[in-house]
């Protein structure tokens, strides 16, 4: 079984503090959906509203089309995997996993059998008789997932379950989680402040900032066509230049900045282009879209710059440049193809990109550096 989750005009307030502001999201059944946002933006709060630990101050939570108002967490078809896992340390691994069955009055033999099946699923066979504190971090992680699955939820909620793991294990668990989700086929709602995680695993990502949903889209769209300045600056690296829109034609705009005239895509929101001539705008250009401009090849956007610093990062070079009349350091990255960057520190260079790779957005709140 699987179910869709719908948040309709949800507001959550703690006193005068608004932790969620007018959230409208429809999560399809069987999809892997992520909430991505900086710490304290209200991700856990939203998840608790879905799992039933708190009631929204306003608006509705629907699971499988049913309004969840007044239904407690033990009655909802959801299972939550906590930020700190919350395994039961006094129980054996298999007892942890079988706990949802135990409280339903399932007999011991049946419980044990189901626990063993789930241990098989999470690739931890024969570990059922260990105590929880005898497991490694990644194993605990998987036990928490198995325990949640034992409850046979329609929706599995995961609150940054990988945040405590080291990088290697985290990458491994990402693929594992995705595989488990495809095997069991239930809706996963996943919370993270790690964009890599969100982009690699999810069918859809909701980017949040200060209780507001900034954009809901698949990973590619989030990365290539961010709809707000916050999404553009929060997801991935980005350089930005502020200026004034001089012309808006079709889906492109021309923005005059102190560093030069830049053209970029006028990203639509709710079906409407966001910028018109005369607006203040921010032009975002990703480091990997920027190139050194050598005489012959023509680029839409060209900027004059001085090489300030170069960093070798293995598979690519990171070059930091000082652009004329731009207060911030601009970064450019190029694939390491065996040759050097080709420019010394202090060299006067020209950099640029095509208009299709530049994104123009209304001025708005930016992610903290």
């Amino acid at each position, binding site marked *: 079984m699987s179910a869709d989750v719908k948040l309709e005009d949800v507001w959550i307030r703690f006193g005068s503090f608004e932790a969620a502001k007018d959230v409208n999201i429809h999560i399809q059944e069987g999809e892997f959906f992520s909430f991505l946002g900086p710490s304290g933006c209200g991700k856990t709060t939203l998840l608790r509203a879905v799992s039933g630990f708190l009631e929204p101050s306003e608006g509705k939570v629907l699971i499988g089309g049913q309004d969840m108002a007044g239904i407690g967490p*033990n009655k909802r078809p959801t299972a939550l995997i*906590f930020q700190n896992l*919350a395994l039961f340390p006094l129980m054996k691994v298999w007892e942890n996993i079988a706990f*949802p069955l135990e409280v339903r009055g399932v007999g011991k033999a049946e419980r044990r059998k189901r626990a063993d099946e789930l241990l098989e699923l999470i690739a931890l066979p024969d570990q059922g008789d*260990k105590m929880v504190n*005898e*497991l490694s971090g990644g194993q605990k992680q998987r036990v928490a997932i198995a325990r949640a699955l034992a409850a046979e939820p329609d929706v599995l909620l995961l609150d940054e379950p990988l945040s405590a793991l080291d990088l290697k294990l985290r990458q491994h668990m990402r693929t594992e989680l995705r595989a488990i989700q495809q095997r069991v086929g239930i809706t996963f709602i996943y919370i993270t402040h790690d964009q890599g995680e969100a982009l690699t695993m999810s069918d859809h990502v909701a980017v949040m900032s200060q209780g507001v949903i900034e954009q809901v889209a698949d990973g590619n769209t989030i990365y290539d066509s961010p709809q707000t300045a916050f999404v553009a600056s929060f997801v991935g690296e980005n350089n930005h230049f502020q200026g004034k829109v001089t012309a808006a034609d079709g889906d492109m705009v021309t923005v005059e900045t102190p560093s030069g005239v830049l053209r970029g895509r006028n990203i639509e929101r709710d079906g409407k282009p966001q910028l018109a001539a005369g607006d203040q705008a921010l032009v975002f250009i990703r480091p990997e879209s920027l190139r050194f401009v050598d005489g012959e090849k023509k680029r839409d956007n060209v900027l004059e710059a001085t090489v300030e610093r170069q960093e070798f990062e293995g598979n690519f070079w990171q070059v930091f440049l000082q652009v004329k009349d731009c207060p911030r350091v601009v970064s450019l990255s190029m694939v390491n193809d065996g040759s050097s960057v080709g420019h010394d520190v202090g060299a006067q260079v020209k950099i640029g990109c095509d208009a299709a790779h530049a994104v123009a957005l209304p001025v708005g709140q930016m992610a903290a550096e």
Partner: protein
Amino acid sequence: MTSDRIRKFFVLFFVCGFFLYLFGPLIIMGLTAFNSSAFPRVAPWECFTVEWFDVLSNDTRLLTGLRNSFLIGFGVVLFAVPLGLAGALMLTQVRERVRPWYYTIVISPILVPGVVLGISTLLFWDRIGVMFGASRDSLFYNGFFLTIIGQSTFIAAYTMLVFISRLQRFDSAQEEAALDLGATHVQTFRKILLPFLKPAIASAAVLAFLASFENYNTTVFTAISTSTLTTVLASKVRYGIDPSISALAVSIVVLTVLGAAIHEVFKRREEAEARQAGLVAAGVMERKSTQKQWFLEPALIMILLVFIAGLGTAFFAGTMGVEECKVAVREQKRIETQKRIEELQQRQQAERAAQQAAEEARRVERSQRTGTENFNSIFSSDNLQPQAGDTAPATPQSERAGTENFNSIFDTQNLQQQSGQQEEAPARTGTENFNSIFDTQNLQQQSGQSEGQSGGQSGQ
């Protein structure tokens, strides 16, 4: 260098002094339990004996009190532990702002003097009893009920503190996880919170029991006609104590130490297991699948062996040759007193001789003068002599009647009797002789009585 040594010396001195201060009274008391002297004391040491344990086991009043104390203790555990747990859980539920107030209120019984709690319990339930028109033998006037209720008022606060400190380490996410996985609130409490609190429940129960067991201030009011160990002890102190009280104390100390040692062994073992679990998790070590049986624990076996050996030795040494030793001590005392008496008599004789000589001289002088009645001689040794002579040969003291020798309170004969009595007093039961301890008549009677008793004992 030298200052360092001086400092070390002072630290050592202080530590020794501190431990002496802590354990000195306990050690002295422990020793008195094994001294055959009738009064709890270490010096002079007479005979090593375990007879006080025997006396203790025959003291029905004390044993009844002990039994009642146990019953009340268990009652308090059953009542105060759930109450404390409820109070502690409540603390986690009330709102942040109310919490300090709530805490202050529920903790306040600890700050109220026990006497006040006792009196108010008594008055309160009396009022309730009157309200219901209950009879005097109803629950509201039952010493057990009132004592359990009265003690629990403050003991529940103790247990609550134990639970609070444990609950502070509880990860409430576990509760939420259980709920989220479909458990009801009751199931969550039973399967998650209660197992977590188990160690705290055990400590709270022990604490509650001990606090109840040793309580006097409240109990003395609420017990009414029921006697507990503490009230019996208190009345004993008023009417005269013997070393069986020390024997009781030694028993309690030994049991406590034994219990603590066993607890420690189990705790160490648990810690070792936890450490092992950590190592297993880290992949350092293979998990030992064989679970050790608790009775195979070497430390536990050691403790039990030492305990049994100590018990055996004490009883062997305490019963072997005690009678001989006591007879010897008595004999020695008698000899000593005899010697003292003889010395005194000799001195008296010498004085008398000197007086007689002087008298003789005076008489000679007087006879030379006109013979008048000799009134002055009323206090002369001549008069005293027949009296001393009268008492000295009266060996079977019991034959002597009541008050006749009241004036001879400091007579050597009496001293002798007293020493004899002191030695025999333990055989006597009860408290009857403390208020009258300085009554010579009593002393004599009792000594005669105990003499008879000891004679009977040796005859058996």
